[in-house]
């Protein structure tokens, strides 16, 4: 094993050591360590999950696309840079009010309550599980590659070890997570990539990169892709922009952020914050991909640009630490996503619809089987037919976006959107994207799978609304209220306790009934 492999092992052991030390020694920590405070819930989990859920993509997918297609890859980045702004502007306030009115805790539960249909929950859960797993597969591949760079093992062996570690870690208990949170890992990744970029671009300026690209192949610099592969195909370009600019509105684990915002007043600050941050960091991995064409002309695997650049510009030990951080981030991302898939399968499907009285032991086993099956399938796919990280992320992100974007947006903008509309939109959107991708309809039609899925999903919602049940008066009222201003003054609004939503609802019903009876007496 190379020295770097040893560094990686030491890195993991140190993390484990810190975790153990904290849990043994920190005062009062035993209860906190096990149970946290009241606020630990699905929302918090989802938030930390989001902060690093792009890890594999950011390190391998984006740079690889730029390496292969040149400046065309920036279309994806341009959309991504505006994703949070659009997401917060469109859904922000309304979603926050609506989820409060429905007292929904998880994004899938929210859909069930808004559309008043358990079927929506089942279909939503199934789509989420499958495509969250597909998302994890991309992380698996990335982990195999990162480990290859670290240890020098062949990819297959590194992949099996990487996935094996991830699965064991998830199933047996993710102790690393105790202190080393996803959030911190996200920050380390961003800092690491920025560091590499500073080194790379102090070595060669962006202008020089472009000049050399022009001498290698001028089409690298065009907006239509290498060899002008997408020349004039606006349907593909628009899809590439839309996937990350509006797609976030369809990702259940990101939508949950709106539900957990402190107040509707949080929105405006969050927009500015996200906008600035994104302009600074989203483009960097892609630009490194472009620099890679010039700096690493003999690179066999485009997804290895960032690891290779790390070794080129940093002393071996720093590069190894950086890669270890990447690997740990990938592990943590994967284990959050795997847990999420396992939980949806056991709670939202098995316990709710198959065996209501299932014991906890059985539920845990169902989650484990789900994780294990995901791992096995993931390994098989990653060894025998490895798609690129980019393709896999675009595919799973696209399907999730196509399934849920229209139902989420319609849930707060339309009083007419109903159960059948949501079902048609989810199934239509998902199926279209899957068919478009697998049958490779992008080239003959000139339409990006995401754009095609979005159109069909929208039509599905529109047609489905003629067949479904009209939403109940309560839901219609809730949608109306979500559109307009909130009920309370600013200082009060800021301090509302979301924890109390369900009690408040019960008390509200009780008080109304009481008032009604009293009025009846008069």
């Amino acid at each position, binding site marked *: 094993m190379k020295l770097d492999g040893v560094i990686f092992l030491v890195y993991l052991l140190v993390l484990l050591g810190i975790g153990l030390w904290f849990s043994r020694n920190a005062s009062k920590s035993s209860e906190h360590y096990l149970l946290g405070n009241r606020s630990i819930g699905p929302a918090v989990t989802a938030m930390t999950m989001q902060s690093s859920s792009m890890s594999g993509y950011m390190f391998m997918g984006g740079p690889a696309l730029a390496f292969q297609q040149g*400046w065309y890859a*920036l279309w994806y980045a*341009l959309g991504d*840079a*505006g994703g949070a*702004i659009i997401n*917060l*502007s469109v859904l922000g*306030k309304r979603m926050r009010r609506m989820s409060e009115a429905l007292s929904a805790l998880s994004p899938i539960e929210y859909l069930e309550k808004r559309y008043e249909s358990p079927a929506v929950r089942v279909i939503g859960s199934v789509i989420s599980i499958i495509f969250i797993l597909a998302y994890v597969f991309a992380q698996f591949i990335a982990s195999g590659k990162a480990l290859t760079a670290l240890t020098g093992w062949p990819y297959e062996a590194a992949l099996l070890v990487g996935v094996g570690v991830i699965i064991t870690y998830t199933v047996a208990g993710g102790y690393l997570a105790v202190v080393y949170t996803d959030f911190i890992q996200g920050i380390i990744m961003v800092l690491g990539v920025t560091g590499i970029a500073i080194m790379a671009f102090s070595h060669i300026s*962006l*202008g*020089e990169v*472009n*000049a050399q690209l*022009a001498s290698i192949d*001028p089409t690298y*610099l*065009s*907006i239509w892709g290498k060899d002008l592969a997408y020349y004039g195909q606006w349907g593909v370009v628009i899809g590439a922009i839309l996937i990350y600019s509006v797609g976030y509105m369809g990702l259940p684990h990101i939508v949950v952020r709106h539900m957990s915002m402190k107040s*509707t*007043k949080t*929105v*405006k600050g969050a*927009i*500015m914050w*996200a*906008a*600035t941050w*994104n*302009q600074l960091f989203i*483009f960097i991995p892609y630009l490194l991909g472009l620099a890679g064409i010039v700096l690493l002309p003999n690179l066999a695997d485009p997804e290895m640009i960032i690891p290779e650049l790390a070794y080129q510009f940093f002393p071996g030990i720093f590069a190894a630490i950086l890669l270890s951080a990447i690997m740990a981030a990938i592990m943590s991302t994967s284990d959050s996503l795997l847990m999420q898939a396992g939980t949806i399968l056991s709670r939202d499907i098995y316990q709710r619809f198959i065996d209501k009285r299932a014991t906890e032991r059985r539920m845990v086993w169902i989650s484990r089987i789900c994780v294990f099956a995901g791992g096995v399938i993931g390994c098989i796919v990653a060894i025998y037919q490895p798609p690129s990280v980019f393709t896999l992320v675009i595919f799973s992100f696209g399907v999730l976006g196509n399934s849920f974007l229209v139902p989420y947006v319609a849930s707060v903008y339309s009083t007419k959107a109903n159960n059948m509309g949501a079902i048609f939109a989810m199934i239509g959107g998902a199926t279209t994207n899957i068919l478009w991708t697998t049958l490779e309809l992008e080239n003959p039609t000139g339409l990006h799978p995401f754009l095609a899925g979005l159109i069909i999903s929208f039509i599905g919602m529109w047609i489905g609304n003629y067949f479904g049940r009209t939403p109940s008066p309560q839901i219609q009222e809730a949608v109306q209220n979500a559109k307009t*201003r*909130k009920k*309370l*003054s*600013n200082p009060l609004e800021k301090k509302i306790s979301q924890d109390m939503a369900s009690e408040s609802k019960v008390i509200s019903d009780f008080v109304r009934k009481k008032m009604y009876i009293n009025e009846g007496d008069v």
Partner: protein
Amino acid sequence: MFELPSVTFWTFIPWPFLWLGLATVMYLKFKREDENEEDMDEI
């Protein structure tokens, strides 16, 4: 600029500024909304 063909330059470079502009517009819009809501409370 940056040795890019002008089509590529002018197609890509404005985006970050457009996004920041949009963010500012939305920020001001929401700010006004929030203030209106407060004014209505005071009436």
